């Protein structure tokens, strides 16, 4: 996937006017030539139309969304904070800005961070470390999309406070492949078509790896029960069971 750290698309592309795409052009000349609104829209369409994001001419849709949601957050936050600060400028409001130190190992990499105690492990991964493979589904412990491994055990990162993970080892979906070689469970999900939209898939795969490790995948009923913490709204369950079962049985090219 292309890294697009320097790429800045206009954030109001749907209301694009001439000034926007001229600015866009000047800011992004190293990536792609945009001369007209049609060019811009075409580049955007190319991005969302491809499942293989490497074909995207510059940044990916995902990076675009990251940027836009980040800026939206900036746009919304200051007045809110300001209001809180003015009306409740006491010990509690000052705690808004208090951070604590956190040392944590994620996918083998040590991180020394300063975070607010209220940050969940999920938000730390997605918002601060750009590890967006772990998905935010319900954000309330009902869907399993945010499943990661903490010290080898599957847990829900949306209900885990990051500050409580001090010194622990976290594995996310980004950390299971061996370089370019996909994890057998990833291969099995592809082979057995264990997804449709793919949003729940990182959580399903993290859960499935743990499910086998726990010894809860000896038959299909067992797999269904012990994978029940991962909801798939496309309903790809039958193929998910096939994928987990094939890895559990150690099938070649599972």
């Amino acid at each position, binding site marked *: 996937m292309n890294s697009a750290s320097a790429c800045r698309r206009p954030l109001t592309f749907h209301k694009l006017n001439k000034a926007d795409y001229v600015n866009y052009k000047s800011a992004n000349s190293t990536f792609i030539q945009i001369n007209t609104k049609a060019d811009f829209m075409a580049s955007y369409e190319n991005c969302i139309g491809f499942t293989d994001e490497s074909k995207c001419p510059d940044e990916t849709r995902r990076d675009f969304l990251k940027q836009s949601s980040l800026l939206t957050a900036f746009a919304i936050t200051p007045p809110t904070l300001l209001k809180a600060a003015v009306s409740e400028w006491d*010990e509690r409001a000052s705690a808004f800005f208090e951070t604590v130190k956190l040392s944590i190992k994620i996918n083998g990499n040590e991180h020394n961070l300063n975070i607010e*105690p209220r940050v969940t492990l999920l938000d730390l991964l997605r918002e601060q470390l750009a590890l967006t493979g772990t998905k935010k589904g319900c954000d309330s412990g009902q869907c399993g999309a945010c499943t990661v491994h903490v010290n080898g055990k599957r847990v*829900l990162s949306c*209900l885990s406070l990051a500050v409580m993970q001090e010194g622990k080892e976290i594995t996310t979906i980004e950390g299971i492949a061996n370089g370019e070689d996909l994890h057998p469970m990833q291969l099995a999900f592809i082979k057995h078509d264990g997804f449709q939209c793919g949003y729940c898939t990182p959580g399903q795969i993290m859960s499935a790896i743990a*499910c086998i490790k726990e010894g809860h995948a000896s038959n299909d009923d067992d797999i269904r029960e012990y994978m029940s913490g991962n909801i798939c709204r496309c309903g790809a369950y039958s193929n998910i069971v096939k994928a987990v079962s094939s890895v559990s049985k150690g099938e070649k090219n599972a």
Partner: protein
Amino acid sequence: MINFQYIKASSPASAVTAITKDNSSMFIAGGTNLVDLMKKGITNPQKLIDITHLELNKIEKKNNKVVIGSLALNSDVADDEMINTDFPLLALALKAGASPQIRNMATVGGNLMQRTRCSYFNSTDMPCNKRQPGSGCGALKGYNRMHAIFGASGKCIAVHPSDMCVALAALDAAVNVTGEKGNRQIKFSEFHRLPGETPQIDNSLAKGELIVSIEVPANNFTRNIHYLKVRDRSSYAFALVSVAVALNIDNGIIKEARLAMGGVSHKPWRLTETENFLKGKNISEDVFKEAGELSVHNAKGYGHNNFKIKLSANSVADALKTAAAKS
């Protein structure tokens, strides 16, 4: 979520001191319920005292009981070999609760302390006497399909959502706690309370008390046991009703019976009257059916949950039949 001060407790005593000093502080362990409540603005502690580093996670078998540390994970207890052999009803109930991911986080003590999943309690837009005393009960005349049929009051018809606690109630467990005034033991039947006029109080813990362990007396309910959980989907859902059954059967005669229900009351609902009725009876479907009817004679529906009365009677009969058939 409103930001808070975070403190790591290094001993049960320091945890108790820290919480006693500050009215707005709370303990956190697994966090599977508390973090969610904090996100929704239902619980807003200014200080969280992390107790997960305390050494309270052992599962120890003693002469006439098992003592389970309050920080033992639900999954560790559910998969413990000794628990599965000697207290299989407890293991069954644990495995029926939540999901594997949540059981890997949730602690035994936290399971006791979890709040109701009543949708009115869980939404700050709605009236709820438990969340905001005096604001009224939205469920009483609202959408109350999931709500209580036993022991409710005009102030609150919420249910306790735990599965594990239903088994613990049936097995006559006890809760060991420590606090400013020292240690004490609370009988499991007296730990959770009925809502009455003060539904905001879930249990009989005094302010600042910390659950240290749960103990279950030794028993010989190892064979004829069953945990039946009836829910809207086959896994990972809260109970509409659940039944924990433990029987001692000798030559087709019930020597002793234990029965408790979940999803039907503000606390795990022990069916002592039905237990007494079953004692000395021969195993038969008619007896089980009668036991089911007897169990719901004092049940009260609130509209949408009227179906739970018949469902409970049938579930008790069915769970008894399944437990009795095990050999």
